[in-house]
């Protein structure tokens, strides 16, 4: 739901501290004192909650978050037997398969273009990055109520009118053909592309200029060849990190789906565009079935972990540059 703090793209060259293991107690004490509040907070507010949720997923917990009414795997059985949940998993898989490559390509493309600018680089960098500072909720509401509103005065409908399409289109409400995806995908692209562009830009600026010079001397004239043989391979670690973040973010999609598709008093939206987190929100907070809600959270977590591992396997996450 919230974006994780951006990890710095790995810059290679592992630095290993010299193995001085002298008993430096004061330094240790300082380390503990400084990190303890953070670790304690993390432990108390995250790990205890996660552990509790895990136990709760084996309980019949309706209208309560107390343990005690153990029902084994019943919650998992209920979830996986519910076509609405399996459909939400398919929805999020398709969404991920689409949004990850598209954001990746757009962010990389923008980064390369911005990097090649001779003047105004800071201006464009900032311009493209600004949407990342907008909250998903605000972005979603602008998209829903202004750009893609179903009234004739909505921006998209005004454009359609100019193009000769006179009937106003209910963008969010139309599921066949699934026009609501246009709204959902464009808002996410607008919100997140700039952030990943900055990551790529940072990666590109780490590439030594000599490499390009040397390649030019060797006769690599076209930009495409320079990109293919220098920029792209040198960006591998950044790319892997970006894909990883994109996948995690895509799987946790909630904010824009919730705000665009649901009408906040009448509960949540319909079957279309219901992501796993929306489904779980509905199960846990709408129907007060906290056991099934927790079980679902773990199913989604397992999926994210599996995808991350798979992606790491193919892209070689964690291998150092020298090995690759």
């Amino acid at each position, binding site marked *: 739901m919230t974006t994780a703090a951006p990890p710095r793209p790995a810059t290679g060259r592992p630095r290993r501290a010299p193995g001085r293991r002298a008993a430096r107690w004061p330094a240790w004490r300082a380390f503990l004192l400084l990190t303890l509040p953070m670790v304690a907070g993390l432990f108390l507010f995250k790990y205890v909650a996660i552990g509790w949720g895990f136990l709760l997923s084996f309980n019949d917990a309706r209208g309560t978050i107390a343990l005690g009414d153990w029902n084994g795997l019943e919650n998992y059985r209920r979830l996986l037997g519910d076509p609405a949940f399996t459909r939400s998993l398919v929805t999020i898989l398709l969404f991920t398969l689409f949004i990850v490559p598209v954001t990746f390509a757009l962010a990389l493309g923008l980064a390369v273009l911005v990097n090649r600018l001779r003047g105004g680089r800071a201006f464009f960098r900032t311009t493209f990055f600004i949407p990342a500072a907008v909250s998903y909720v605000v972005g979603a509401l602008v998209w829903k109520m202004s750009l893609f509103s179903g*009234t004739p005065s909505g921006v998209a409908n005004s454009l359609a009118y100019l193009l000769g399409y006179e009937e106003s289109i209910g963008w*969010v409400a139309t599921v066949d053909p699934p026009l609501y995806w246009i709204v959902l995908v464009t808002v996410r692209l607008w919100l997140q592309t700039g952030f990943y562009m900055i990551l790529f830009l940072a990666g590109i600026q780490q590439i030594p200029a000599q490499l390009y010079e040397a390649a030019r001397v060797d006769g690599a004239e076209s930009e495409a060849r320079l990109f293919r043989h220098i920029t792209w391979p040198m960006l591998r670690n950044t790319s892997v990190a970006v894909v990883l973040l994109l996948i995690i973010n895509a799987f946790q999609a909630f904010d824009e789906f919730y705000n665009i598709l649901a009408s906040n008093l009448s509960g949540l939206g319909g*079957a279309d565009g219901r992501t796993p987190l929306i489904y779980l929100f509905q199960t846990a907070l709408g129907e007060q079935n906290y056991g099934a809600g927790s079980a679902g959270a773990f199913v989604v977590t397992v999926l994210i972990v599996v995808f991350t591992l798979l992606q790491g396997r193919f892209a070689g996450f964690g291998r150092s540059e020298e090995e690759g």
Partner: protein
Amino acid sequence: MHRPLTRRGLLKGSVLFVAGAAVSACSTGDPLAKGTAAPAGSGAKITLTHWYHEYGEEGTQQAAMKYAADFTKANPDIAVKVSWIPGDYATKWTAAVLTPDGPDVYEVNDVSPNMVKAGQVTAMDDVLGAEKADFNPKVLAPYTWGGQVYAVPMIVDPMLVFYRKSLFAKAGVGVPTSFAEFAAAARKLTQGKQKGLFVGNDGVGPLGQMVPWSNGNLLIDDRDITYDDPKVVEALTAVKDLYDAKATLQGYSTDWWDPGALINGAAAMQWVGLWAVPGLTEALGDDFDAFALPPFGPGGQAVVNMGGWVQVVNGKSRNLEAAKKYVRWLWVENTAAQTDWSLAYGFHIPPRNSAAAKADKLNTGPAKTVMDAVAAHGIKQPALWTAEVRQPYTDAVTAIVKKDADAEKTLAEAAERSQDILDKVPVL
């Protein structure tokens, strides 16, 4: 400063700072509340918290706070803190009542057996007292489990179809008497930038439930799911035809409970509640009226959906007796406040029969039309039609109406799931 800050001093300081921040963050109560009234009279021994969802009409929040302050004046020992919760109210109270710091008194639409079992509500028979007989039994029924009533109704909100009289006259359309006429009217009133009907931003809204009702099937009958039925298939097929005709407004800036679309002429008919009448009168004068959703066909019934809000007392409240006393004082005895709440802002029907009978504002104009429709056709949603039970049905409705799914098969599958979920609801 006498001495420079040492590293140790800095560490100590930062730890203290973090600890302090954590403690103060924990003790800031009610981070969700948009506006809260400070409890009047600092001498109070008990402070009750009372949650409302955000009513749209101006002045309602001030009124709620005034009632609370009046109560404290009469009972100096008990202060009441009113919290006005904007946005998605339901998910906020469901989370809050899990903790010991949940609201003592709050309002809801439904009371399910699960809520009773979890102690999120408490029996209110002693709160209703002798006045129980004065409450509309139809309204009390869905809140009664195992012979005990778990809520005090605050307001009854009938929902039905409102329309613009001038637009009807211009298009030569009369008040429809069957669903076919209703759909034809919606088509005929769709002209240029105006749509015939607004029932919700998804284009289907409450029709998925109300049209089968009007064809004589309430979808659920006590502990049996009944919507796997040719009558429901017939009704939903008709809703699909209406949807396909593009006569319904979709994706408007406000949803069906706000009369904006009707006022601005974006739609000629709208599914909305009695509460909208003052706003509509102010904007349109007498250029509007209402009618019950007509019977689907021969053998059907006209439908007015009787929604509303009820007050419940949190069974886990530390001040159970004080909370009950407050609810009795405000929502049972204090008829002046009830009348003010029901009639001075948006219009609602006071749940006490004696108060409803005296509600003169509901005896003129469109409000009178609504009241007559309620008397003749009011239907209260069955109590066990909970969010969980109806989810497979609403998904089926979307699939049938919007995606050409086979109605019979889809409903049969959904009904099986709904029945499964219903069977797990505890019997009280």
